[in-house]
């Protein structure tokens, strides 16, 4: 177990370093920068001064190494678009919003998806199964933009049931409805399909037949035997889904004008705010890699048949 953890942590460090290096390199080569003199012309001396202050006169691998060393100590630098504030502080002020949006979305979509999958498996080959499978398929492939705009046009502009945009969780909870639903739809479909397949597989196992043969009622077999074993593989699917909420959803936050990390990140691309983008990339990659590692460990703990090998 320790050797496994060690080798995984080495791999994880390699991935995070490579991702940060690639991000840094490609941002370095993209034209345009924070001091493009669109707003005000600068004298060459002033420009050189600013570039020296932010360390932009160094070769890019030196800039990268310096950035990473600082980031390791929790210092993500100064944002270019908000020069008076540290990236770390800015992130904190937007993060709560994204985590609330993501958390609420998962809170309804995970149970709904799993329940839909179980129902579809139990009612296999009926119209209900067909309906659930079709719905699940559509929510997996349908672009988020489509849900967002259909929702806005139908429920906000035509029916006027819900506000068109905004995010005021306490003052007007109705603003939460459309963002939370649209963000969770993809998860519902993914989980429903996975749960349906998993349930069907488990129901075909010998121990389920044995439990039935010894006279257990079907409902008890499902809740006691089948459900537990079906839920284990779902852990693997959940980890990237959970990790995703750390970087927010650019589309949902942009579409509904929500001040979260995803929207912040779009502004960062537009303003070439490299320190900000690097911070978001680092946090997103770390969250994703860690979630895979945690999944593997959890998986081995939940299912004694699985032995970790290297």
């Amino acid at each position, binding site marked *: 177990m320790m050797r496994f953890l060690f080798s995984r942590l080495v791999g994880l460090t390699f991935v995070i370093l490579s991702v940060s290096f690639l991000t840094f390199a490609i941002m370095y080569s993209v034209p345009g920068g924070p001091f493009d003199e669109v707003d005000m012309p600068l004298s060459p001396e002033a420009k050189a001064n600013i570039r020296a202050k932010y360390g932009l006169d160094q070769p890019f691998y030196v800039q990268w190494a310096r950035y990473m060393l600082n980031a390791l100590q929790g210092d993500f630098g100064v944002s270019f678009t908000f020069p008076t504030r540290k990236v770390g502080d800015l992130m904190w002020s937007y993060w709560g919003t994204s985590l609330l949006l993501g958390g609420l979305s998962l809170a309804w979509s995970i149970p709904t998806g799993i329940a839909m999958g179980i129902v579809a498996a139990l009612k296999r080959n009926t119209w209900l199964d067909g309906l659930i499978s079709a719905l699940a398929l559509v929510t997996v*492939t349908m672009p988020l933009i489509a849900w967002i705009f259909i929702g806005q046009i139908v429920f906000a502009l035509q029916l006027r049931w819900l506000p068109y945009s905004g995010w005021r969780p306490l003052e007007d909870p109705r603003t939460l409805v459309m963002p939370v639903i649209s963000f969770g739809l993809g998860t519902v479909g993914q989980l429903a399909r996975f749960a349906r397949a998993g349930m*069907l597989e488990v129901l075909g196992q010998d121990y389920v037949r044995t439990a039935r043969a010894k006279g257990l009622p079907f409902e008890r077999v499902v809740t006691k035997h089948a459900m537990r074993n079906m839920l284990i593989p779902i852990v693997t699917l959940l980890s990237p889904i959970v990790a995703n909420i750390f970087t927010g959803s650019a589309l949902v936050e942009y579409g509904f004008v929500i001040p979260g990390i995803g929207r912040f990140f779009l502004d960062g691309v537009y303003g070439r705010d490299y320190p900000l983008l690097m911070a978001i990339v680092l946090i997103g990659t770390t969250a994703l890699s860690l979630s895979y590692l945690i999944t593997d460990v959890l998986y081995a703990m939940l299912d004694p048949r699985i032995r970790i090998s290297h």
Partner: protein
Amino acid sequence: MPTSGALAWRRFARHRMGLIGAAITIGFVAVAIFAPLIAPHPYDKTNLFKPTVPPGRLPEHPLGTDELGRDLLSRLIFGARVSLTVAAAVQVVVLMVGLLLGFAAGWLGGVVDFVIGRLLEVIGALPGLLFQMLIVLLLQRYTQDSVLVVVVAIAALAWPIYVRLVRAQVMTVKEREFVEAARSLGAGTAFIAVRHILPHLTGPLIVAITSAIGLTGFITAEATLSFFGYGINEPLPSWGKMIGDSVRFIQRFQHLALYPVLCLMLLILGVSFLGDALRDALDPTSERVGAQ
């Protein structure tokens, strides 16, 4: 005894949704191919005297016009062409890279497999949307062809899953007896790859192409990039861009957003249902049809 192809077709034809999906998909492909013949107006012809005409107001603009007075129907029709061109081009690139690297990793193993594996890990961990946007910004410096730029940006991050798929399949098939038999008869690697391994790949690849990791994913990616303004450039129409541009007017002119959204939804629906039916048809062990 019917051939496996005939059996697959029979299973496919039993899928009502699959047939509907196929019809929708073929319809969009036909519209895309014959766009210049079907479209009532050129997609880039502006008329500043007739901006934002609502649908049904003028007979020559059945779906109305956009803020520059361009015919919405014509732009939707050419938008289908842009959307499908990008998706198909990404698919071809990604398939070729997937086959090449997947074969290399699965067949050669060892160091090659290790290096490709690490590469896949890193690319898979990159934040997708950010990198697509950065690649678009980077390439715009070298070419004006926004379709090419978008294709490269989407393909650059989409190939790893195909390498994994091909690699896994190659590794299982290469251990089978018929490969050993072919080799003992003196067959070369290239011959075995094309004649013995490739046929085993077509099923899984067709399923991947019509699923969320294939065409529907690429259609979505193009629409999303164009929506944010990092995709197709004017005057070419893209549904995603049309939606993005309409946000400013959406309170007063909802048709500008509604029609491209509906086109996008219908196309995605069609391809998804087609893909779902194909998956059932190509996989004889698939339970849904087999249980009937």
